């Protein structure tokens, strides 16, 4: 076992996959000599050289479009977008080509590509560095969307994403890049895409989240347990597409209540999709409407006001009480 934070876990997955498969290529802005602005790819350039850790010109559509061609030609590119707020020039390539090349060619040409990007707020960053726009990828047929919440999952899910035969959007919550260390196996391993994880068992209510706010959810659940009021089950969605409704619905059938925590703006977010699917699957067991704790339908504020925007432990506890007392 190695004691790793999320940055190191992602780097280990990249390193081991590059050692395992010569077709795995890392490309992006500043990923090479500089090791990435968050140092995720540090050391890879020195180990694998400039032909496998490729510093590209500064053009996101170019990076993703070129990676699509590399993947069609038999490579497994892992493209880094420096911040998810800069992915939009590449959104056309993702929507118009990466997600549908398999369909367009009836399986003849495929795009086994990963697009990694730091995502979410909480680091007092500049404008465009704090958004949580995962829903715009979840809505695209043909893309998979993965958001890890801890180093162990990050390594296993990224390894699985690189080996996956289809394009995967891999969002890395930068707020927790270095927030936690945990024991992570030194050897390579995969975690299946499309499986949620029950991270805390409970009977009163199901609290659902992904990414950085799994931690917020667990803290809220722990507080309520310490206070001896509610016994909350916490589920980490892990992959938003494909979404593991079975695990979530089974929990809600058991608890009868659900709250979803998402950092993204409220309207049209993934929490809404979860609420709809729970209504379809568990309407008769639901004792209360599915609660949502979300960002506002506003532009995420800069650092001074950021804490007002994000879901926090108190807000999650408040919603849990409201849902319990409905």
């Amino acid at each position, binding site marked *: 076992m190695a004691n790793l934070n999320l940055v190191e876990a992602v780097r280990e997955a990249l390193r081991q996959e590059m050692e395992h498969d010569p077709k795995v290529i890392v490309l992006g802005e500043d990923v090479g000599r500089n090791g990435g602005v968050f140092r995720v790819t540090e050391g890879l350039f020195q180990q694998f050289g400039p032909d496998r850790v490729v510093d590209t010109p500064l053009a996101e559509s170019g990076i993703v479009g070129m990676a699509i061609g590399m993947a069609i030609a*038999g490579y497994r590119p892992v493209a880094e977008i420096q911040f998810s707020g800069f992915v939009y020039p590449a959104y056309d390539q993702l929507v118009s080509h990466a997600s549908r090349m398999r369909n367009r*060619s009836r399986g003849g040409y495929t795009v086994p590509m990963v697009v990694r990007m730091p995502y979410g707020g909480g680091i007092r960053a500049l404008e465009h560095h704090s958004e949580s726009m995962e829903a715009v990828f979840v809505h695209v047929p043909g893309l998979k969307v993965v958001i890890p919440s801890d180093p162990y999952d990050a390594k296993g899910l990224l390894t699985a994403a690189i080996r996956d035969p289809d394009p995967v959007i891999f969002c890395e919550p930068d707020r927790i890049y270095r927030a936690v260390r945990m024991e992570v196996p030194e050897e390579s391993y995969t975690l299946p895409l499309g499986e949620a994880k029950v991270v805390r068992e409970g009977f009163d209510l199901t609290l659902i989240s992904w990414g950085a706010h799994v931690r917020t959810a667990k803290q809220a659940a722990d507080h309520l347990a310490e206070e001896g009021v509610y016994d909350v089950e916490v589920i980490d969605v892990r992959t938003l597409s494909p979404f593991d409704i079975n695990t979530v619905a089974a929990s809600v059938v058991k608890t009868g209540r659900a709250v979803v925590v998402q950092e993204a703006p409220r309207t049209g977010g993934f929490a809404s999709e979860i609420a709809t699917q729970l209504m379809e699957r568990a309407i008769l067991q639901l004792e209360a409407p599915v609660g949502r704790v979300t960002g506002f339908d506003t532009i995420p504020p800069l650092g001074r006001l950021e804490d007002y925007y994000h879901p926090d432990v108190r807000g999650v506890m408040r919603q849990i009480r409201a849902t319990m007392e409905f």
Partner: protein
Amino acid sequence: MPVTNLVSFTIPRVEVMDPAGTVDAALMPDLTPEQIRELYATMVTTRKLDDRMLKLQRQGRIGTFARVLGQEAAHIGATYALAKEDWLVPAFRETGSFLLRGIPPEKLLQYWGGDERGHDFPAGSRMLPISVPVGTHMLHAVGIGWAMKHNKERAVVLTIFGDGATSEGDFHEAMNFAAVFQAPVIFLCQNNQWAISVPYERQTAAATVAQKAVAYGMPGIQVDGNDIFAVYRVTKEAVERARNGEGPTLIEAHTYRMSDHTTSDDARRYRTAEELAFWQERDPLERLARYMRAAGMLDETAEAAVAAEAEAKVAGWVEAFEAKPPSEPEEIFRHVFAEPTPALVAQQEELLSSLNAADEGR
């Protein structure tokens, strides 16, 4: 503090064969009479297929499609310069390229006929499917070119697009990436002077498309796009440079779209009959025929034989297309992912059971 001129450039234009069919022997590419006959037959067959597709569209037997009338020399001449191991990344106005790359032409009819199975190309064809969004596919050519270089294959990539595509950002990103990575890519712009109703002058203020190469650090050349010998010659040279590790080239084939943009368009709304007549006199197919007649390679009998053979082939392809069994509704779900997700399995089941219910009158 002197002012110095850092960069100056010239853009060559290559013409081998004039509209009368007279060639400049010094520039004539190395083509055998058999190869010239093959090029001619491909152009004739492409035109017959294009004509027949128009009729099929008017009869409702296929859907909207983009005609290639007038551009046969540009895309056929360029595609002919490729070896079998080379890649072709097309846009949507390259019917003749399908014939040269060994894609069964009934597949093209099937695709334009609204059946995606037409894009199920034979394994190893190294031709990507038609790409409808304008100007975004050239980046894929760069990625494939990068892969060929990395893999130490000597294969190159030809990507074809129109003058409208040169206004898209991805065109510039593709040119820049290709030059920075010295990827073996040939960018062929079929400058047919009209992006639907917008003329070249409204697309760019540059005198040529070819000169855009200068800013990215690669050669840019204009050719007479209705002169198949010139297109072939220039593309062949670019292919050899790319194959030898000398990087990408931008070729502007200066041609003319003698048809409407697609079967849904009416070009009479925005351009004059005089302009069309001017270009009809410069028809690329007739130009090659004039050369071949003068060279003793084509007489009336041979011309009729080529036409008859093309007609027969086209008739066979139409027959093969129309004999295809209808697509199953499951085809919608078949190629979203390598393995369908549980949600896709459930949605397919939902569709099939609703169809069964409809059959049973429920």
